[in-house]
């Protein structure tokens, strides 16, 4: 909460600084000498290049990486990665970064290239460069790289080489078992190159989609789905996931929304703004049109209560019980999107869209609410209410076995029809638990909102049982 406020202050401060800067800009004197870093393109040819280190990810199998002198594409050695089986006590996956912490100047190259093969056909989760266990400012990942048993050359293009004048993260990867089984990957001749054939850049934000959202002053969100696509000399298109710092973001109305160089969108006023981006002079496909509805009216703050009198599932006023999720995405019938991902001025709020039904689940452990008297929920319906609209709240108890199924589950629901609902303002519900007629309330584990798609967008806050 505080961090987000600070970001906003920083954004505002930056705005001031930027407006001041042009008046005090000064040229470089002839004595100015920029620090330069080695332009060494080699990462791993037949051994570690100068300065290269091995740093495995926490939780990974630390011994997954070895230098293999038997199997290699060229020269005398390759990098060998032994992906663990599921259940390997030494690590659930293999993953590491290979940094040169002295930094390199990679701005003269356009791609990282390497040869790779595996002991079986597989899909490597992530591989790329720009990961330095620090800011990861220029992180690049090729996701789901298909790999076969034959040596194949791979090209991971640099989204904008001019950014990489001081890059530490030369190479990184992360991969788990395939269908539960470990296997081996060999990678060789890892180096940056100036291919001259990496062309036709097509950057994208929001996965290339033109999105829109309603929001409020004080809400922060992040530009997602950042990619850069190139056409390689082979004619193949390749798309990499790209860190925000490769992009220059802009807002059509900075009095409504500002976007930082890290792609954090801050809503500062009422109105409409469109967020777009440019990568190395090329306009990115995709945008976010923001409609800021102005100041957000928070749900009524729950009264102070003795902790023993409250079992809170979701509120900023009380200590919450462990919750598994605020949206179970139950296939195949659920359409509901969203969950507890809205924070407005430090107030955490659940937002559901495309609602038909959705469950919050708190089964680890289940909760005994038999001593409580009421369920409290604040709901705000973000659309007009039609005569047939309703919202039902359903409680689910997992019974004595504390788990779903087993013949001891019970549930009950309370329905609120259109006459008792109003739009665009908080509806505070205090429902006597006696209204939920069910076999057990000692192993409570689920709370559903059900509209059968009559109402699609709601905000939810302050879900708790009390007495």
């Amino acid at each position, binding site marked *: 909460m505080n961090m987000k406020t600070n970001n906003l202050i920083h954004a505002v401060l930056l705005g001031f600084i930027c407006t001041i800067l042009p008046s005090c800009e000064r040229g470089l004197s002839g004595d100015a000498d920029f620090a330069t870093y080695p332009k060494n393109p080699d990462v791993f040819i037949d051994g570690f290049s100068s300065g290269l280190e091995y740093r495995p990810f926490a939780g990974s199998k630390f011994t997954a990486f070895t230098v293999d002198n038997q199997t290699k594409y060229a020269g005398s050695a390759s990098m060998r990665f032994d992906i663990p089986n599921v259940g390997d006590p030494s690590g659930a996956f293999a993953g590491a970064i290979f940094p040169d912490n002295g930094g390199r100047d990679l701005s003269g190259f356009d791609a990282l290239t390497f040869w790779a093969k595996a002991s079986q056909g597989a899909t490597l989760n992530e591989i790329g460069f720009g990961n330095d266990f620090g800011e990861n400012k220029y992180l690049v990942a090729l996701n789901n790289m298909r790999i076969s048993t034959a040596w194949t050359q791979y090209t991971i293009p640099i989204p904008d080489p001019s950014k990489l004048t001081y890059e530490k993260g030369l190479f990184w990867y992360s991969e788990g078992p395939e269908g539960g089984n470990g296997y081996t990957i060999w990678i060789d001749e890892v180096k940056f190159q100036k*291919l*001259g*054939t990496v*062309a036709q850049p097509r950057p994208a934000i929001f996965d290339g989609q033109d999105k829109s959202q309603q929001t409020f002053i004080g809400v922060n969100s992040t530009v997602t789905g950042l990619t850069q696509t190139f*056409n390689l*000399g082979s*004619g193949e*298109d390749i798309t990499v996931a790209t860190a925000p710092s490769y992009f220059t973001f802009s807002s059509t109305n900075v009095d409504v929304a500002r976007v930082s160089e890290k792609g954090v969108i801050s809503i500062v006023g009422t109105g409409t703004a469109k967020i777009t981006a440019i990568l190395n002079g090329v306009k990115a496909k995709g945008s976010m049109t923001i409609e800021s509805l102005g100041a957000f009216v928070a749900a009524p703050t729950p009264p102070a209560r003795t902790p023993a009198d409250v079992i809170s599932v979701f509120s900023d006023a009380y200590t919450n019980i462990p919750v598994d999720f605020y949206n179970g995405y139950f296939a195949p019938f659920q359409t509901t999107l969203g969950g507890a991902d809205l924070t407005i001025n430090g107030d955490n709020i659940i937002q559901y869209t495309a609602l038909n039904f959705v469950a919050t689940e708190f089964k680890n452990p289940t909760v005994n609410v038999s001593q409580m008297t009421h369920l409290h929920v604040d709901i705000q319906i973000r659309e007009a209410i039609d005569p047939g609209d309703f919202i039902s709240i359903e409680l689910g108890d997992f019974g004595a076995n504390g788990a779903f199924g087993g013949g001891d589950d019970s549930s009950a629901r309370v329905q609120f029809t259109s006459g008792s609902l109003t739009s665009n303002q908080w509806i505070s519900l205090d429902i006597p638990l006696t209204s939920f007629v069910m076999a057990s309330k000692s192993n409570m584990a689920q709370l559903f909102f059900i509209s059968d798609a009559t109402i699609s967008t709601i905000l939810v806050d302050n879900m708790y049982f009390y007495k």
Partner: protein
Amino acid sequence: MKRGNQSEAGSRFVTARRILLATLFAAMLSCTDDTQTVAKLNTLVMADEFDTPGAPNSTLWNYDIGTGQNGWGNNELQFYTDRASNVTVQNGYLIITAQKESYNGSSYTSARILTKGKFEQAYGRFEARMKLPWGQGVWPAFWMLGADIDSVGWPTTGEIDIMELRGQDPTVLLGTIHGPGYSGGQSISKSYTLKNGRFDTDFHVFGIEWGPSYINFYVDDVLYNQITPANVPQNCDPELFNLNQSCWVFNKPFFILINLAIGGNFVGAPNGNTVFPQTMLVDYVRVYK
């Protein structure tokens, strides 16, 4: 920039005349003219620099309109038009644009211009400076046909493809001749691959130097192929030629064509990754003798 030592030309049908090539390369490397180092025919007889905005110069260029027969004989997918959205001159360039649009029953539109009946010449140096389109199913070409095509037909009339490119192979140029007994899949062709560049990101000069007994193919300052009468079949149909006479037909006037085709047998159809519109830019077309 000298690219002579970076040639990766792969001969498929023609035995390279290594000694002659070596001589030419040596001559080229010793030459200091950076823009043209392989050609010797230097008397300009025709040039279109595309400096007048609007439609192409009508004293020089005609249009082929429509889909021809069977997609111009290749199952091409585009409908050729003379609309400015498909062909125009702007900012010193001829711009041919392939659009993805429904038009007269076709799914794509584009343009093909030709000098038939307006500029026809036997022999000489024919070249164009172009920046090419790219992507699966995109097929730009700068080429020539025999001026007697309407009386003798294709392939007897002869065809010289100075530049063809498959958009899915953005680094690979093809230079080809077609004639009686060596057309279509039996054409005499050679590719040239740019090692550190592509044909869709910068302008390149594509040309031939054509004399009575040879056609030299070059790109920029690299001569990458020579085809002579000895390379073509020697036993043409006796009704057209004397037996034991070479099927070489490049001894009469030809006209110039520039087009951007979409789909067809040579490249296959575009796919979901093919970006439209696609543009081909032509800085100039020049003919020397």
